[in-house]
């Protein structure tokens, strides 16, 4: 069931909330059990068989966790370690079968010239997200950070429908205390804040992302057909997709935060105006924040820690500060970063282009760290350096992200290459008639771009879409900022410097936009909701649901 569908908004949500509050009058436990039942219905709606696929994995993980807990209490560390390794392997293989079997068969055929055929395996919805969350749970139980849990707690943690399909990827220790404290009673503030989040998210998804999506598809189809992608349309394809996925995922995240809030549950922040980042490390601390948190904690840190300890054991000083050697840089930073981003790419999708995209970001991050170490510390005046470097960093980060998005979206390597060549002008420059008329005597230097060939209104929609979404993404305060007084996500508080916009005076005005439970805001949100509802009905899946 899609968040942006009639049955979800007008049937599932009202029924689930009504049941939750009614049962909550009697006992919180029954309200929570109802929530598990509702989440199972939500999951089964798509393909009922999916429930039968993930249920065994939930049961196995629960017993693995119980075993870990018991071994921990009995101080049998060695056995606990093996159970943990077996548990992680089970989850990775489980995901691997559904997500990667087809791809790996293809790779085998590519490499060895074989022709194995495997029936197409359908990936159960959200399995990638569920898998990461279960691995984090096992690690937390093993390390003693989770002491008590029941089957009911565990099911609620894994199945809670607002974050079931595409995150935020949460930790047990930040969620369960909230469920145990939940009043399970109707609370007007929670409903008002939740509705505001949900409607903002719905608007971003169905009005902005879905508006650009068909035109982006048309341009990528054009590129796949073998047509040479000239400069202008390459940029429109890359920018168009960047904003499409931005509003798709930002919209999804807002809706998830809002849905959780209906039940009095707050998720960690997951999306915080990433395109305003002034370096690529900052970008990953703002885009899919809970994935970055997961990868850092469970892949990057252990790898880097292992390498750093190995160096320490050899008598080498910890890397950094006075001790920055190339060997150290490669061992403790570059290799762990590349490996982590490789996993990130491969996790997003079973395909060569996803792997390339992950590695590309690994390279970006490595360069960013190297720059920080080599160049940034040579500037004595930090404030002057930042004033000078921030705008440059912003532009470079933005362009790097946009170029990366081509790999993320393109169906084949040939299509990606076609667009990437176009971005740097290797496929020539072609302008539409409307622009050719304005370049006067230079018009001879440009080819003519036949915009009709791309499909009706594709060109116009993308020009308007990119300008409008660029304005919203870069200039307007984001949802977390607008609602900051009401803690829309865990730990989000009002900040003093809320808008980091390039245009200061506009920024000062924007920073004053803050939601409050008032008639004026009720009218604004009603209008946002009405526009959103008007655009409902298409069967448009969230991009992140396919991962």
């Amino acid at each position, binding site marked *: 069931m899609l968040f942006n569908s009639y049955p979800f908004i007008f049937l599932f949500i009202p029924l689930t909330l009504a049941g939750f509050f009614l049962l909550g009058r009697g006992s919180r436990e029954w309200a929570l059990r109802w929530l598990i039942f509702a989440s199972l219905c939500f999951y089964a709606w798509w393909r009922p068989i999916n429930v039968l696929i993930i249920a065994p994995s939930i049961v196995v993980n629960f017993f693995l966790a119980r075993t870990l807990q018991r071994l921990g209490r009995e101080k049998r560390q060695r056995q606990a370690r093996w159970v943990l390794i077996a548990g992680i392997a089970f989850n990775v293989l489980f995901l691997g079968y559904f997500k990667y079997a087809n791809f790996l068969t293809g790779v085998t055929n590519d490499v060895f010239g074989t022709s194995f055929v495997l029936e197409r395996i359908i990936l159960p919805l959200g399995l990638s997200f569920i898998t990461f969350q279960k691995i984090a749970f096992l*690690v937390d139980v*093993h390390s003693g950070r989770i002491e008590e849990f029941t089957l009911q707690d565990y099911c609620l943690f894994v199945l809670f429908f607002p974050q079931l399909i595409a995150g935020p990827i949460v930790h047990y220790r930040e969620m369960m205390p909230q469920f145990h404290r939940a009043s399970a009673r109707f609370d007007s503030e929670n409903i008002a804040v939740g509705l505001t989040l949900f409607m903002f998210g719905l608007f971003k998804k169905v009005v902005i992302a879905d508006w650009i999506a068909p035109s982006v598809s048309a341009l990528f189809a054009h590129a796949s057909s073998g047509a040479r992608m000239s400069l202008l349309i390459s940029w429109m394809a890359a920018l168009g997709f960047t904003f499409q996925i931005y509003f798709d995922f930002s919209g999804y995240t807002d809706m998830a935060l809002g849905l959780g809030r209906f039940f009095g549950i707050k998720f960690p922040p997951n999306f915080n105006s990433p395109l305003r980042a002034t370096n690529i490390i900052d970008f990953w601390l703002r885009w899919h924040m809970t994935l970055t948190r997961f990868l850092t904690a469970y892949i*990057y*840190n252990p790898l880097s*820690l292992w390498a750093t300890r190995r160096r*320490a054991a050899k008598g080498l000083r*910890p890397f950094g*500060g006075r001790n920055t050697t190339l060997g150290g840089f490669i061992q*403790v930073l570059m290799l762990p970063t590349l490996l982590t981003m490789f996993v990130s790419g491969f996790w997003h999708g079973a395909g060569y282009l996803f792997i390339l995209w992950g590695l590309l970001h690994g390279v970006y991050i490595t360069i960013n760290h190297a720059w920080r170490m080599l160049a940034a*510390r040579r500037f004595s005046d930090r404030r002057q350096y930042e004033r000078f470097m921030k705008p440059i960093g912003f532009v470079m980060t933005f362009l790097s992200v946009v170029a990366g998005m081509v790999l993320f979206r393109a169906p084949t390597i040939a299509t990606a290459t076609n667009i990437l060549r176009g971005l740097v002008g290797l496929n020539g420059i072609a302008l539409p008639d409307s622009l050719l008329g304005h370049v006067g005597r230079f018009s001879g230097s440009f080819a003519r771009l036949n915009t009709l060939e791309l499909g009706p209104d594709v060109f116009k929609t993308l020009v308007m879409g990119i300008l409008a979404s660029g304005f919203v993404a870069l200039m307007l305060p984001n949802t977390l900022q607008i609602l900051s007084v009401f803690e829309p996500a865990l730990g989000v508080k009002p900040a003093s410097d809320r808008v980091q916009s390039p245009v200061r005076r506009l920024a000062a005005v924007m920073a004053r936009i803050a939601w409050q439970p008032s008639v004026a805001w009720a009218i604004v949100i009603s209008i946002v909701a009405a526009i959103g509802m008007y655009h409902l009905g298409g069967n448009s899946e969230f991009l992140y649901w396919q991962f």
Partner: protein
Amino acid sequence: MLVDRSRLSEEDILAALTRVLRDLLLDDSIVLTMTTRRDEVRDWDSLVYISFIVGVESEFGVKFGVAEVESFENVGAIVRRTKALLASS
């Protein structure tokens, strides 16, 4: 070593932690307190953090758990954990 490390006070450990971080970031103006969080110190990113942790490990001859490293909510948590590890060693 002449000093009995299991008797080091939290202040002593905090001072050593400050020294380790100052060395790593080449910044003698850094002052750590028990409530300092990583995002409050400029440039204390994930890379420097790992080096810092291993620096503390070599300084005191202790070893933190991998999962633990991620969950220290502030400097105080690292100090307390170090003290506990020293006491049990």
